[in-house]
């Protein structure tokens, strides 16, 4: 399994949930390490970008080509309708319904709390821009991939 690109997300599920033990460490949107595995409505969490924003695949024969995070199409297919894209072997995966991306502008730089520095802090990845809500920013390689609104 690859190490995923992570972004800040906010939990918006109906009920509090438990994060699976052993899969952490978990960090909130401010880069603080979570001290509880309980995730409540409104809590933030750094999590794989594709889980929050979805991802796009292009099926080429028996190979599945990942086009990246969010809903993306190649420039030569940008004019196609959703039905035509599906017929062209695009496979769009939606993000989780119980998380939403945190708007990047409200984030502070990641900070590790000194009081929790007993364990070596795990690397905190920089939050990635919400590419679904900021279409002017390229999702991957702007020369090859164009986002669909």
């Amino acid at each position, binding site marked *: *399994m690859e190490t995923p690109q992570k972004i800040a997300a906010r939990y918006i*599920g109906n009920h509090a949930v*438990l994060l699976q033990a052993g899969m952490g460490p978990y960090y909130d949107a401010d880069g603080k390490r979570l001290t509880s595995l309980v995730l409540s409505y409104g809590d933030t969490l750094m999590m*794989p970008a594709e*889980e929050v924003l979805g991802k796009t695949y292009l099926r080429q024969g028996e190979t599945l080509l990942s086009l990246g995070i969010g809903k993306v199409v190649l420039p030569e297919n940008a004019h196609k309708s959703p039905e035509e894209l599906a017929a062209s072997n695009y496979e769009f*995966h939606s993000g*989780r319904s*119980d998380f939403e991306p945190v708007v990047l502008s409200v984030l502070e730089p990641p900070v590790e709390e000194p009081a929790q520095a007993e364990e070596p802090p795990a690397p905190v990845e920089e939050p990635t821009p919400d590419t679904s809500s900021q279409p002017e920013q390229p999702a991957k390689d702007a020369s090859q991939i164009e986002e669909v609104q």
Partner: protein
Amino acid sequence: MPTVLVPIRSDNAYWGFSKEVVPGTPVAPSVFPRWQDGSSLEYDLKMEEIWEGDGSRRLSQLVKNQQGVKIKLTIMPRMNEIGFFEMLAMGASSDTITTASPSTTLSAGATGGTSTSLSVAANTGLTGTGNIQMVVGQGTATVETATFTLPVTGGGPYVLAVAASYNGGKIANNHSSADTIASVATANTAFTSGASAGATTIIVGNNNGLTGSGTASVVLSPGTANEEIVTITTPGTGAGPYTYTLANAATLKNAHTSGDFVSTPVIHVISDQTDGAYATIEVGLGSLYGSSGIALRVRSCKVESIKRSGKAGGVIAYEMEFAGIASTVQSTPPTITLEKHNIFLYTQGTWTLDGSTSGDALNIEMFDIQQKNNLATEIQTEQLTRAALIFGNLAVDLGFDVVYQNGSRIQEVYFGSSTGTTDSQTIYLGAFNVSFLQPSGFDQLVLNVPTIAYTKVGMPAPKKDGKYFKQSLSAVGTSNQGANTYVAQTTVYNTQYSQN
């Protein structure tokens, strides 16, 4: 030099589920039930041997005609998981929330993403303070559960403001004039003052559903880490805000913040439908904790069968089989989130058998209700994978063992009535209903098959050990010649404030 293998633990696995909003578009899973042994994923292949007249007796080649996925899941479900899986099993739009007062209609349409308030016809029950959650447009395609701020304003029609905490303060979907708007639960209010752990009272903004004399089981701060279920004494005191005292001299375990919700359970009534919603299922087999196994995301899955079962002293379990259309390998592990509620126990059950809470209703040792949707899995066009899955005929089969008390069951099923004495063609009809209520008085599961036709009574088998006779009963659920609008129905009381 000898090397040491790195085996992968067999409990390194996960099952994740989500409902597909657009059929065929996979959705990252958000429901991760804790699985039991018996859960599995298998590929379902149709193969064709190609024998050709090449003068030999050798198989020439093999062709793969179709590829799909079969998934099995065995769980001990929590109250919100039950709502999700029952919805998948019963079919699309099977989940109806039992709304409560206050209930009125829209006096004007509303625009999703724009309207910051709704115009409502009546203000009864909407004159308190604080927030309230209401179902707007039940029965329409744009139904939503939104949060509003009380009181309404105006002189009629009245203005009901969307709470700032909901969807940026705007209603999410379009709604038409005359659409219904009603409370999502009998008691449905919010703290208007914070409460500390150890407190004996709570102060809330309205008293809807909490005016009678008695007690009510309510959830405080649902969705938060401080969620707890308490029993309060009703009615409260005050003219608004209202103060309620915890029953039995209990105290709050957790602190609660002003604005947090307080409500009785949301009641989801889920009945069998003509076809099912698609789900995405992701299964990881040795892919957690950095292990090098595989994770597979299967899109467009439907429930082939579901079995709800329990036995004396045990846990209520669900066994489900799914069929899926197509799969892809996942490259990154998901964020696994687990429901933070309790499982249901057999001892929490109250049984009604053939309309009676006595007789064999008190003698049941185990039960199972198996529902088969008989998916049509042969729909295939130009692709290797299936083009669609649809529900076939519904079959609901019941089995339950009772401690043998007398011969009346035998007479009912084979001789036409409890007093019959000779062979009879009459089918003995009954009904099956069991309600599991957790000690909190909040989480509840009701399994109901309103018309069952008995097909077999296992005859008591004599044994020399001299212990006790038991009878195995079998029955099928019917529509009672179309008189019932459903064959099987599940009602779950939980904290899922929107439809599954």
